[in-house]
């Protein structure tokens, strides 16, 4: 004689699932972290490395003081104008003798191109500079490079530089980076006051 099997009451299943759901809602986050990615220079070795001689015309000096004021190439500047100034410095479109020297470089896809290979953008800030201002300056300099690379990439490959991804586009990416190299140097901050 078969005994009747009692059905398990599943009425509280929903409550259990609710409990788990609420636990996960509370203890997890959904936000994705985004920001400005950079690479720090490695710590210098014990032996002092040989002084690299950089010509005055090849350096673009950006100073920020503790009042968050900008001094670009010896002149006060508003942050609004930094991007344009940086772009002009990087490309030197009018062959200005005060802007970085150009060299002819053979680049894949482009052939021989004039490149301001030795330009350096030098950032220096005070210990009292606000972090917000520091990020703004970093952002504007990055924007200058990104816009120039986008323009070049658009005119040649019809694709924005940021969309040149994947292994098959690596050559193109390298070519653009060869023409517009990114040289940002950050000096150790000083207590310049001001």
């Amino acid at each position: 004689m078969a005994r009747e099997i009692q059905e398990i009451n599943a009425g509280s299943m929903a409550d259990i699932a609710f409990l788990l759901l609420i636990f996960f809602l509370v203890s997890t986050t959904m936000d994705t972290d985004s920001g400005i990615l950079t690479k720090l220079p490695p710590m210098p070795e014990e032996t002092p490395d040989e002084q690299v001689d950089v010509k005055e015309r090849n350096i673009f000096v950006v100073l920020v003081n503790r009042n968050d004021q900008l001094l670009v190439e010896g002149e006060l500047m508003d942050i609004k104008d930094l991007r344009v100034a940086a772009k002009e410095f990087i490309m030197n479109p009018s062959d200005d003798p005060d802007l970085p020297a150009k060299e002819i470089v053979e680049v894949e896809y482009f052939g021989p191109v004039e490149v301001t290979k030795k330009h350096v953008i030098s950032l220096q800030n005070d210990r009292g500079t606000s972090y917000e201002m520091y990020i703004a300056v970093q952002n504007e300099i990055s924007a200058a490079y990104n816009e120039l690379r986008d323009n070049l990439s658009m005119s040649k490959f019809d694709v924005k530089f940021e969309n040149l991804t994947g292994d098959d586009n690596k050559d193109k990416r390298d070519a653009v980076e060869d023409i517009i190299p990114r040289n940002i140097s950050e000096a150790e901050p000083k207590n310049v006051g001001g």
Partner: protein
Amino acid sequence: MSKFRKGGKKSVAAITTASLPDIIFMLLFFFMVTTVMREVDLKVDYKPATANQTKKLEDKALVSYIYIGKPLNKKIFGTVPRIQLNDSFAEPEEIRDYIAAKREELKEIDRPKMTVSLKIDKKVEMGIVTDVKQELRKASALKINYSTTEGDPIKAISGY
């Protein structure tokens, strides 16, 4: 009488709730898959700076976090900006041990890809940030990310 009210007493059929657990389980799995566990309890006041040239951090497992900001509990810890590692305040010298420990947790093949995300309050002065960066250089954790929110930084600055 209206067309819809026919007859006197008609028992309403009970809605079956048998599929309710299934729906809730579906929601549960959705949240389990799309979210990640909270890393730490924030002990410092953190309002990110704004920038628009940002990149997303791809793999969360490879990211370690350093928070800098004014302590939330001003009565006990004062108002000088502090560094937070894991769940406690720390001095800049402790960063090297922290990075070493985090690096140890990763698989050997992933170690060069380790990224340090700096979550720094926008009102913090650069002095402490520089100290942290120097320590990171000493610890040879060179890939860093300045965590920001999306927006125009120039507008954000002129706003205050």
